[in-house]
Every structure is written in C-alpha cells, then in structure tokens.
C-alpha cells in the first residue's frame, strides 16, 4: 500500500479544523482576551486587568443572578425530565404499532414548526390578567380574583421553558428506550418484577445515557437563555445572559465577556459532571 504523505492528511482535516478555528476557537479566545480589558463609558481599552472578574464575583447581584439561573435550570430540568420520560415511555412501550409511534412522535415536534419567540408570546394572552386561564377559572367559580402569578413571574418563565424544551428530553430518552430489547422486560417479569420494579431496575438504568444527553441539552439551553426570562418574567427576574445583555447595551463589553467566561466554565463543569456519572458514548 502506498503511504499517504503527511501533508495530504493535514489537507484532509483542514476544512473542519478551519471551521472550528474560525467559529469556535477564535470567538472564545476573543471573549477571554476581552474579559481582561479595561473600559470606560465610551471605549474599551486593551489591558490585562482582573478588575472585571473582581467586580463580577464580589457583587451580590451576580451571585443572586447566578443562583436564579441555576434555580431555573434545576426546576426546568426536573420537570422536563419527568414529563420527557413519561412521554418517551408512552411512545416507546405503550404505543404498539410503529406507524402510530411515528405519527405521535411527529405530533410532538409540531411546536417546532413555529419560532420560539412566537410560541413564547402566545402564552401571554393565555396567562394574562384577563387571559384565557384566569377567565375560565373565574367563570367556573374556582377563583374570585385573577391569579397574578400566572404571567410575568418565575412560574411563567419555567412554564415556557418546559413548553419549549421538553422535546429535547423526549428525543434522547425515546431513543434509549427503543434500543432496549423487549425480551429484557419479559425476563424481568419472569423473575417476578412488578411493572414498577421493571421501570426502576431495568428501564431507568438503561435509559441513563438518554437522560444524560437530554439533561445536557436542557441545562445548557436554560443557562444560556435570556429571551424567555426577559419576556415571561416581565423584567422581574434576571438571568446570567440577561446580565450580559445589559452590560453590552452599556458598552461594557469586557464586563460582559468576563461574565461569559464564568458562565462557560460553570456550564462546562456541569456537563463534565454529568458525563462522569453516565457514559454517553454508548449512545452516539
């Protein structure tokens, strides 16, 4: 066999390497570099200062915002996990015909046919003070006054997250479930397992990679989100990305960059922790 010379190999990996370099390495490197810059109200000044990080990490606002974002992530993660697992379970084990499985799966993706923002906004007339939800509850006589917490609240933010992103949990878990050999469930039944025991001792452990992938999706999306928080909390809640937005609108790019680096590290650690818990390579 003829040996391919080294530069041919380099040439072959060059396009992808270039794309990564241009669109991943360079931007992140820029953010890291800028995070050490100085700034005033009109300009950013190249420098190497730790001031941005100091200001960020010593401010109680930062800590509160991070806690808020982490809280949103955890609540959203927990809810989407339960709903996503249930939907995936129904699709994978309760729906027997492949045709119906595909049909119902497509139905699950219907929300994705419109943009995120539109789906978000469409909650507003539903949840508002005189919205559908309040009107219906009042007409049924269940409440006397409109529920205020429905819209422009943390409740609304989490609800929207769940609505927008549950499918990201459903798909990987469904995929894991479809790979489970059905005879394993019979073997469990043969060994005397109740359906509940089969779920906990066979299905859940075998779905772990799917759960991990779904969790990574949800956590990274929610941690990086600012549109939902801004729209659905009515400006009453903050998120880390919203903080960055605000900094940028004041042209405080170095401050925003420092914040971005901190958030990036946090997300990377979270994902790394999840990967340690579950070997997702099996699924890829």
């Amino acid at each position, binding site marked *: 066999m003829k040996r391919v010379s080294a530069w041919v190999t380099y040439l072959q990996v060059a396009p992808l390497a270039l794309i990564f370099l241009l669109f991943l390495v360079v931007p992140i490197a820029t953010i890291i570099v800028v995070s050490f810059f100085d700034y005033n109200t009109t300009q950013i000044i190249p420098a190497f200062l730790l001031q941005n990080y100091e200001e960020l990490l010593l401010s109680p606002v930062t800590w509160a915002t991070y806690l808020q974002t982490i809280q949103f992530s955890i609540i959203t993660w927990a809810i989407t996990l339960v709903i996503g697992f249930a939907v995936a379970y129904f699709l994978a084990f309760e729906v027997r015909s492949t045709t119906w499985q595909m049909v119902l799966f497509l139905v699950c993706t219907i929300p994705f046919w419109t943009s995120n923002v539109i789906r978000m906004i469409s909650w507003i007339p539903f949840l508002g003070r005189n919205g559908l939800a309040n009107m219906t509850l009042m007409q049924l006589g269940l409440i006397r006054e409109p529920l205020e917490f429905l819209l422009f609240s943390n409740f609304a933010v989490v609800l929207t997250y769940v609505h927008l992103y549950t499918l990201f949990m459903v798909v990987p878990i469904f995929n894991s479930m479809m790979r489970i*050999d059905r005879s*394993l469930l019979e*073997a469990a039944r043969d060994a005397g397992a109740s359906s509940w025991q089969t779920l906990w*001792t066979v299905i859940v452990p075998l779905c772990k990679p799917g759960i991990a992938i779904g969790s990574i999706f949800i956590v990274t999306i929610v941690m990086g989100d600012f549109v939902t928080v801004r729209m659905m909390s009515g400006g009453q809640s903050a998120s880390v990305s919203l903080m960055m937005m605000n900094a940028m609108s004041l042209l405080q790019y170095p401050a925003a960059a420092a914040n971005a680096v901190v958030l990036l590290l946090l997300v990377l650690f979270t994902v790394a922790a999840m990967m340690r818990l579950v070997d997702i390579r099996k699924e890829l």
Partner: protein
Amino acid sequence: MATKPDVELVAVTKRFGETAAVDQVSLRIPAGSYCCLLGPSGCGKTTTLRMIAGHEEASEGDIILGSENITHLPPAARGTAMMFQSYALFPHLDCTDNVAFSLRMRGVDKDKRRAQAREMLKRVQMEPFAGRLPAQLSGGQQQRVALARALITDPQVLLLDEPLSALDPFLRIKMREELKALQTRLGISFIHVTHSQDEAMALADLVVVMNHGKIEQAASAREVFNKPASAFVARFIGGHNVLPAAVARAKGEGAFVAIRADRIVVQPGNAPVDATSLAGVTRSVEYLGSTVQVGVDVMGLETLSAVVPEARFDANPVAPGQPVVLSWAPKDVHVLGR
C-alpha cells in the same frame, strides 16, 4: 422436597385475531422429563412455551402444573422459569446481579442474594466471571449465566426457547450435553423449543412434533423416528422416504408409507422391479463420512434418498446418472396415519 409435578395442557388454544397460532393442544409432560417441542417456524411451538411461561395468555383451555391450574397466574407465581432465546441478560448488571435479579425482586437483602447467586454461578462453572457484564462474555458463557438466573428460583419446570440457536455448531453440541446432564441432575422437567430434529432426538424423553398449531405426534424420540405418525412427521424428522402407499404396495389404511433411508438397498442396473423395489436414476451421491447418501429420481415420485454404509457403498458403487434399483424389506415399510 414435594413430589415433582406433571405439566398438563388441556385443549389450549391461542388466537391472534382470526388465526389460531395454537389450536386445541392437549399434552401431558410427565414430571422430570426432558420435553422438546419441535416444528418448523410458525408451527406454534414458541407460543405454546410462552403460554406455559405466562408471557402469553391462553385464549382457551387450561394449563395445569401438578394439581394447580396456572393458566391465569403471572409468570413468577407459576413455579416455571424461562430462558430466553437470546438469553435476555440485563446488560447493565454483572453476572452476579443478573443471577440475583429475581431474589432482589423478592426483597432478599443484598449480601444474601449475592452469596446465593455466586453459589448458583459456581454450579454452572461461571464463578470466575461473576463480576463481568454480559457484553464481556461469549455466547456459551452468556447461556450459562442465563441458566443460572432461571434456576435460582428453584423452578419446577424450566422453559427454554431455542436455547442453542445462538451458538456455533461445535458449542451447540457441547451445551446440548450440558443441558441434558443438568436436567438429569436436577430432576425437574425441561421444556425446550427447537426447530432442529437432531437436537430434539438427542435430548428429549418426549418429542412433541407440531405443525400448524397442532400436535402431530408426541412420543419418545425412538418412536417418533421409527413410527412417525404422519407424512409431515416423517418428512420433518428426516431420514425417511415418504411414498404413496400404492407404490410400495403396502396394505393398511394410510395413503402414504415411510421407509427409513438407511433401510433402502441401492444396486446398480435395471434389475426386474418386484413389489418391494423401484427403478430409478441416481441424481446425487454425497459422501458423509461413515455413510454415503444417494439421491435417486424415480419417475413420478419425489427424490428418494438412501443412506448406505461406506463399506457397502464401496463394494457396489453408483455414480450420478447411473440407473439403479432401490429395494427394501417388507417389514421396513411403515404405514402412515395421515
């Protein structure tokens, strides 16, 4: 220990929609016997096994184990255990936990169930692999673990769904011997589904030949081979030539007769055709080692085969295309019921 129970099927039927996969099957499997359900794919043998196991609900009829009607009991309450075709070992559990699974479901505490599982693994010579995951085991090893898992609940009947089909031929024969030895040692009934007549003949005390959801014959291997009940059984079990009764000039009720291939004498030439011989043309000669199988075309019949010991073949060899005469003794003609 209490006396071992018989398994009895009483007019058991399983319908999938309109079609009956198993049609009014009645069968008694004596305690402590090795029973093989044998038949082509789609004959209802696996469905029958799954109904005994409780993984398929019988549409009609009763399944009785000892003195208890188990037709509607859940699988684990029947005193049966099943070994699945591809073993169905839990991929996320090591061998010990796989074997201990049913004990875990019963709430036996961890140390006790793992100790018991290890004991069981020792009995199938798998103790050195106790900590391995199923994916790290060979087919034969997986089968042993699956056996250990099925046996840990002390079942009265072990159900095996094509247990040897996933193994290579060499291992298949080895595991076959082990299964038989294990059954003899445990003294419980094994019900084993297979489509291989060799397997059934080698293992079974009771061979149950099934076709189209019905039992064609249920008897000892010897009886099934020497006195096949029907043309289907004679053909499926192999080693037989099925002829129209008129051709063999046999007396009796049946329309067909069976003559064992090894009882047919092949001679070259166009010798006169008497009542117990036929003239034909050699179609094929296959050397099988200690025997030679000769295929012969006879006008108006399906290809007949004769199995001739090597020495006798060498004394009187025939070649493809050569005219030959097949003859047999009248006592070797077995009249078939159907």
